[in-house]
C-alpha cells in the first residue's frame, strides 16, 4: 500500500473527467505527487537528527523540535495530497452505482454511464467544491502552524528541560522554504483549475437548461 494506490485511483477518475479535470490530474501527478516522492521526501528525511541545539542538556532538542514542529511540513503535505485526491472517489462511486442500477434493471437506463449530467453532475460539482475546500484548509493550516511559509534558520527555545533560552538550528531551511513555496504555487494552480472547471460546468449546464426550456416554450 503506497502512493501507487493513489495513482491508480486518480487514473480511474481521469476517465470520467472533463478536459480541465484531466489537466488537474496531470498537475497533481507530476507537479505534486512525483515532486513529493522523488524530491521533497528526502529533504525532510533526517530533520530531527539534523536539528541541533546549542546545549548539552538531554531532552532539550527533542522538546524544542516537538514545540516548533507539531506536525512536520512533509506529513502535512502528504495529508493534503490524500485529502485533495479523495473527493474524486465520489464520482467513481456514482458511476459504479449507475452501472449497478443498469445491471439490476437489466436494461439501459442512461445514455452513457460516464456522461456528466443529472445526478452525476451534482456529484461532480460537490467533489470540485470539496477539493477546493480541502486545498484552502490545508494552505491555511500551513500558514497558521508555521507563521507563514518561511522556514527560519534559527529558533530560540526555552521550554523545560532546556536550562535557559537556547539557540536551535534547523537543517536545510532555504531548501525547505523553496519547496514550501512550490507546494503553495501548485496548490494555488489546482484551486484555479478547480474553480474554472466549476464555472465551466455551471455555465454549460445553465445554457443547456435555458435552451431546453426555450425550445419547450416555443413548441
Amino acid at each position: 500500500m503506497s502512493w501507487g494506490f493513489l495513482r491508480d485511483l486518480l487514473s480511474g477518475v481521469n476517465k470520467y473527467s472533463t478536459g480541465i479535470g484531466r489537466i488537474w490530474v496531470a498537475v497533481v501527478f507530476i507537479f505534486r505527487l512525483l515532486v513529493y516522492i522523488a524530491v521533497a521526501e528526502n529533504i525532510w528525511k533526517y530533520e530531527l537528527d539534523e536539528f541541533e541545539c546549542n546545549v548539552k542538556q538531554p531532552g532539550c532538542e527533542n522538546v524544542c523540535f516537538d514545540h516548533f514542529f507539531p506536525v512536520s511540513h512533509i506529513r502535512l503535505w502528504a495529508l493534503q495530497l490524500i485529502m485533495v485526491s479523495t473527493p474524486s472517489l465520489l464520482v467513481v462511486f456514482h458511476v459504479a452505482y449507475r452501472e449497478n442500477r443498469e445491471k439490476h434493471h437489466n436494461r439501459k437506463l442512461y445514455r452513457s454511464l460516464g456522461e456528466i449530467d443529472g445526478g452525476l453532475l451534482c456529484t461532480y460539482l460537490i467533489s470540485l467544491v470539496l477539493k477546493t475546500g480541502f486545498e484552502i484548509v490545508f494552505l491555511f493550516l500551513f500558514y497558521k502552524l508555521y507563521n507563514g511559509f518561511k522556514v527560519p534558520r534559527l529558533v530560540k527555545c526555552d521550554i523545560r528541560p532546556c536550562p535557559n533560552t537556547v539557540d536551535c538550528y534547523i537543517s536545510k531551511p532555504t531548501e525547505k522554504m523553496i519547496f514550501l513555496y512550490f507546494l503553495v504555487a501548485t496548490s494555488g494552480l489546482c484551486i484555479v483549475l478547480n474553480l474554472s472547471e466549476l464555472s465551466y460546468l455551471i455555465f454549460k449546464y445553465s445554457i443547456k437548461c435555458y435552451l431546453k426550456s426555450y425550445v419547450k416554450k416555443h413548441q
Partner: protein
Amino acid sequence: MDWGALHTILGGVNKHSTSIGKIWLTVLFIFRIMILVVAAERVWGDEQDDFVCNTLQPGCKNVCYDHFFPISHIRLWALQLIFVSTPALLVAMHVAYRRHEKKRQFRKGDQKCEYKDIEEIRKQRFHIEGTLWWTYTSSIFFRLVFEAVFMYAFYFMYDGFRMPRLMKCNAWPCPNTVDCFVSRPTEKTVFTIFMIAVSSICILLNVAELCYLLTKFFLRRSKKAGNPKHHPNHENKEETKQNEMNELISDSCQNTVIGFSS
C-alpha cells in the same frame, strides 16, 4: 509512484514523435533519469551528514551548509527532469483530444470518417501536421527554455560546475571564519559535469528537431504552392513506413498514457 510512472506517461507520447524526438526520449530516460536514480542519489545521499566543519560550535555546520547549498544539486536535477518532461504532455493531450473528436465523428456515423472501428482510431498514429505541428513545436520550444533556465540557475547558484573541497564560512553562529569540508567533491564534480554534458546533448537534439520541423514545414508549404496536384497518399505512405521503422528501432513502450488515450 515514481519515475516509472513518468516513463509510462511519456511512453505513449513516443509514438507520435519524430525520430529525433524518440532519440531525445531515450537519452532522457537512460542517461539522465536512470543515472539520477541509480548513481547520483547515492553520491549525494549523505551530503549533510558528511559535511564537516572545523568547529565545535553547535549550529555552525547547519548554517554553513544552508548557506553554500540553498538547494541541493540532486533536487535541482530532479526538478529539471520533471519540468523538461512536462511539455511532452501537451502533445499527449492534443492527440487524446483528436482521438476523442474522431471517436465522436465515428459514433455519429459521419460519412467523412474513414475508420472501420473504434480500435483503429485508438491505435492510429497521427502525423505531425496542422495544429498538432504547432503543439509539438511549442512543446520543443518550452523544453529548450526549461533546459536553458535550469542550466543557468545551476551555473549562477554554484559559481560554475566544480564542487570545491573546502569552503570558508563565517555566518553566525560560527565564531570566526571556519573551514568546512564537502563530502566526495571529486565524485560530485564528475557527476555534475556528466549531467551538464547530457543536458547540452538534449538541448542540441531539441534544436535539431526544431530545425527539422521548420524545414519540413517550409518545404511542405513550397510544395503545395508549387504543385497543387501532388499526391498526399504517396507522401503519407512513405512517412508511415519511416515512422514504423523508427518505432521498431526505438524504445516504444506501452500504448496507453494514463487515461489519456482511453
